[in-house]
């Protein structure tokens, strides 16, 4: 996989006059990041293993609790594992593509943002591809494995509808996390040292998403459902997939609300991002 001169000097594409489509441009942007990271093989491997370990200890917290008590927030260990696996998978994908946007203040301070502004490509696409960090794949792999295995153990009985939901849920969740990261980044156009504020919503959102939503007292549950839609990422879909009754505010049917919530979150994120860029060009660095 290591990048060698001979590989870089490969023959040009068959039609050298083919106009560059948007898809091909996007593929070029992301592809370049993948190749650069694969070239640092040992540190890459250590990073992936580190990620797996973090996911492991996070879940160990829930597992230790469930070795002491039979249910947490009304859920058994396999059911909690579905919530955790689905949440980790969604967070992993969102983090992979948008996880570095919440470091925007550093990009602003270093002046890198200016070099991005003078290129004819949308900023979000540039930042997303510029910082794509493949080591995050560790969380995705562990999350996916846990999601699938735990669904089996928890007695998932698929119908056409729930099968569709099982596939949509991680993607909708990833989109929600992506929007949260983008909101967190956009916030920093105003709050330059506010990265840690953002953590409350992004990493805090992940913490809530990977936990059975019923454990939260009503005000918190409302906040993490209607303001930050974290419970709609994994907990609500798990209720719907396993046909479990939900607590107050989160009925079983809320499992289908992930995708609409993602759309709403992205509309907000895009608006705030645009306002942030406008503020930046107005106020300057």
């Amino acid at each position, binding site marked *: 996989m290591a990048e060698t001169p001979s590989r870089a000097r490969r023959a040009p594409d068959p039609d050298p006059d083919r106009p560059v489509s948007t898809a091909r441009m996007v593929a070029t942007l992301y592809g370049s990041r993948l190749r650069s990271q694969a070239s640092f093989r040992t540190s890459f491997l250590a990073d992936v293993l580190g990620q797996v370990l973090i996911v492991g200890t996070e879940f160990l917290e829930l597992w230790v609790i469930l070795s002491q008590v039979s249910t947490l927030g009304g859920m058994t260990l396999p059911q909690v594992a579905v919530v955790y696996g689905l949440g980790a998978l969604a967070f992993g994908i969102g983090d992979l593509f948008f996880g570095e946007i919440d470091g925007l203040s550093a990009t602003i301070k270093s002046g890198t943002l200016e070099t991005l502004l003078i290129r004819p490509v949308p900023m979000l696409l540039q930042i997303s591809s510029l910082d794509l960090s493949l080591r995050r794949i560790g969380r995705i792999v562990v999350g996916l494995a846990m999601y699938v295995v735990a669904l089996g153990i928890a007695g998932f009985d698929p119908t056409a509808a729930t099968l569709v939901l099982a596939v949509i849920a991680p993607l909708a969740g990833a989109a929600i996390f992506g929007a949260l990261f983008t909101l967190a980044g956009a916030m920093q156009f105003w709050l330059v*040292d506010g990265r840690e504020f953002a953590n409350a919503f992004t990493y805090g959102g992940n913490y809530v998403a990977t936990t059975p939503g019923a454990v*939260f007292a009503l005000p918190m549950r409302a906040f993490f459902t209607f303001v930050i839609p974290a419970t709609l990422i994994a907990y609500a879909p798990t209720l719907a997939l396993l046909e479990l009754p939900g607590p107050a505010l989160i009925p079983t049917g809320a499992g289908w609300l992930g995708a609409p919530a993602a759309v709403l979150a992205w509309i907000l994120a895009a608006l705030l991002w645009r306002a942030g860029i406008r503020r930046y060009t107005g106020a300057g660095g």
Partner: protein
Amino acid sequence: MPPYWSIASASFRQYSTYRMATAAGVFTNTIFGFIRASIMFAAITSAGGELSGYTIAQAATYVWLGQALLAPIEAFGTREVSQRVHQGDIAIDLLRPTPFLGLYYAQKLGRSSFLLLGRGVPPLAVGAIVTGLALPTDPRSYLLGTLSLLLAITLAFLADMLVNLAAFWLLETRGLTVVYTAVMNLLSGFLIPIVWFPDWLLAIARATPFPSMIQTPIDTLSGRIAPAEALGLVAVQVGWVAALALAAHLVLTAGVRSVEVQGG
């Protein structure tokens, strides 16, 4: 002694100027505290009001003290020393008249004092108001707790320093920092009390210095364990401090020698 004092107070003042970051840290620490408290309360309620010696009030105290300790302990690791090793700036530090470890320890104490007051106490206050705290009745618990806290910060400093000093031999220490952080978060009893662990995991945890970094100061400060019992745990902390200080000293010496041999 005077240089250490001025280093520590300069470090304290430097951190006190990051007001926005401090406010952001307090906010995030508080939110995480509420999330953690919710999970523990649910577990204890599910167990019928008490789980392995923890009641709701004790669990609340455990969570908020943990959130308060997170910043001064710097549980997520630091990278300054490893970066200075990689960039060769470590040579400058070693040439100073103040011994290297003493220099960084003084900085750490100054920084941690601010982080405790600026970032640790506010979430604790919010917790005291919202969920309530179980505070010790014996004044000796406060005394021992303060000592235990100082030892915990010292231990965390030494362990983090050992991870950083690995940079003398490793080209990239980020992976190591990640692994260290993950292990420390779990085995220190930060995420859940170690007495909730299954026996095998508890045995592993007790064989490491990690519980001395978080679980011991929390237990001592909250009065969950009696001062007599706490005294034994503080003695364990002292033992680990001695062991890790020796290790850090040896590793630093070996690292410096390896650089001198390579002429790097």
